[in-house]
């Protein structure tokens, strides 16, 4: 009896979570330029428009460039930081870690405004480089958390063994540490990539008037009325998330990445 109720509750929550996505997918298939659900007439023309209209294509390109580079930059900041904090014992360790986690923990508008004032002073306001660096800092938190988890999972005895066998620090790093944390590097990159693709407020504040990303483009178009093209973009976002997280789940340990113990700690 109780089990049935729990299953019903879980199912209901999943339906509520999925409902907007289903409606939006349906709307994107309308034949007419209207948001009707259920759709009237089926057509994929709005997806075609997304790929053929220069302003949408431009927004897609901007978003992808920013996400690909800023996620790499975020990992490049997070990895040495996580490694240093794991390898050495320093008193200011928690401060450094907190610095890496803070941009993401605070309401984003605060960080965004800090970036805006900074870039306006530096003269780089409005360039794509600005958005890339801002996103890299803003999303450093994600690879920092995943990589730290990965490093903590390394059995220190393995490191000790390889040192005894004569490996110097660089060899240990290259042949032991890197292979063991690689899945965590990849998933940290993936989290930063997906979130950068979806990020609005920071990109808008630092160069939203010149560099139009997909979320900015959608928000700007909302003022001129809703079209099925927006729905097709939304479907694109949902799919990217699904594919990326599905891949992480397939090749990595998703529950552990999200903080569950895979095995009981000794």
């Amino acid at each position, binding site marked *: 009896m109780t089990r049935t109720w729990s299953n019903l509750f879980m199912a209901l929550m999943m339906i509520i979570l999925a*409902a907007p996505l289903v*409606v939006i997918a349906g*709307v994107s298939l309308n034949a007419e330029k209207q948001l009707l659900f259920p759709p009237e007439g089926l057509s994929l023309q709005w997806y075609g428009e997304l790929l053929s209209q220069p302003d949408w294509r431009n927004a897609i390109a901007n978003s992808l460039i920013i996400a690909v580079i800023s996620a790499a930059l975020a990992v490049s900041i997070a990895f040495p930081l996580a490694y240093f904090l794991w390898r050495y014992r320093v008193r200011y360790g928690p401060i450094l870690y907190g610095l890496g986690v803070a941009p993401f923990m605070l309401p984003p508008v605060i960080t965004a405004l*800090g970036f805006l004032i900074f870039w306006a002073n530096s003269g780089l306001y409005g360039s794509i480089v600005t958005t890339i*660096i801002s996103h*890299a800092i803003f999303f*450093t938190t994600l690879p920092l958390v995943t990589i730290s988890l990965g490093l903590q999972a390394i059995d220190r005895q393995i490191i000790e063994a390889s040192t005894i066998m004569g490996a110097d620090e660089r060899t240990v790093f290259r042949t032991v540490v890197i292979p063991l944390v690689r899945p965590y590097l990849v998933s940290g990159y993936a989290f930063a990539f997906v979130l950068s693709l979806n990020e609005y407020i920071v990109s808008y504040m630092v160069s939203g008037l010149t560099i139009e990303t997909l979320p900015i483009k959608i928000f700007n178009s909302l003022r001129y009325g*809703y079209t099925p093209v927006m*729905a097709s973009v939304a479907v694109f976002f949902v799919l990217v998330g699904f594919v990326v997280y599905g891949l992480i789940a397939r090749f990595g340990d998703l*529950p552990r990445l999200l903080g569950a113990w895979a095995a009981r700690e000794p």
Partner: protein
Amino acid sequence: MTPQPPRGLRDYVAILYPAFMLGVFFVVPFAIMIAVSFFRRNELTFYEPAFVLSNYARLFTTFFGKSFVFSILLSALVGVLVVIVAFPFTYLLTRLRRRTQVFYLVFILSVLSLSEVIIGFTWSTLLSATAGISNLLVFMGLLDQPQAWTPSLTALVVGLSYLGFPYTVLVLYPALSRLDPELPEASRMLGASPLRTFFLVVIPVMRSSIISALIMVFVFNLGAYVLPQVLGRPEHWTLSVLITDQAIFQSNMPFAAAMAIVLMVLSLMLVAVTLVLGQERSSQR
């Protein structure tokens, strides 16, 4: 190999670059923002160096004071609503088989990553008169005519709850998945019903996690920027919207900075509370 203090300059090489990046692009912008919040507004160059408190004082005027209080009440309301639903959901989720759990987690992560813009757009469609839930109710004979339910405060609360739910699930997930399964089992063996076990064993044990989650989702919702504009009316604009409005459209950087600093201090104090709670939790072990 236990971690040792770094010896010599070579050991510091790894930390130079991250410290440089975070220092230049995170600490410096914050320092400038704090300084600007005390500057005087200037039509020509946006602001000029000064030390005035008028930017902070303006927060106490009726209009901004009101929306400050509104932002806090709205975030608190949504936080409570979301945790009430997300806590049992996450508890049940962690009791599922691993494979099923992974499926749920992929879905929840995908929803979590969705841009606020997309969530605003989908919910305003769902609550609209043309493609929304009201059509379904008309079809089922519960309504005479499709109705538009947005913009309204209810629409905003629904949208914010949708935004906050996956986040809360992931905040609660670590603590709940580490909950010793023997604890509820023991309670069951002693004759308590599953519901009784949930309310009298699981919830009390998880008390500090629940409070942390409440605070986290509260801070998270304070950051909502798009939803109040898409699903709410102008009187529902939250602090985040006003900060952006002041910075971009009114070109009043000092005032925007002052609001941001106040919001940050509030958030930091709350985050500090969750950290203290977390420490209490680990010292109990």
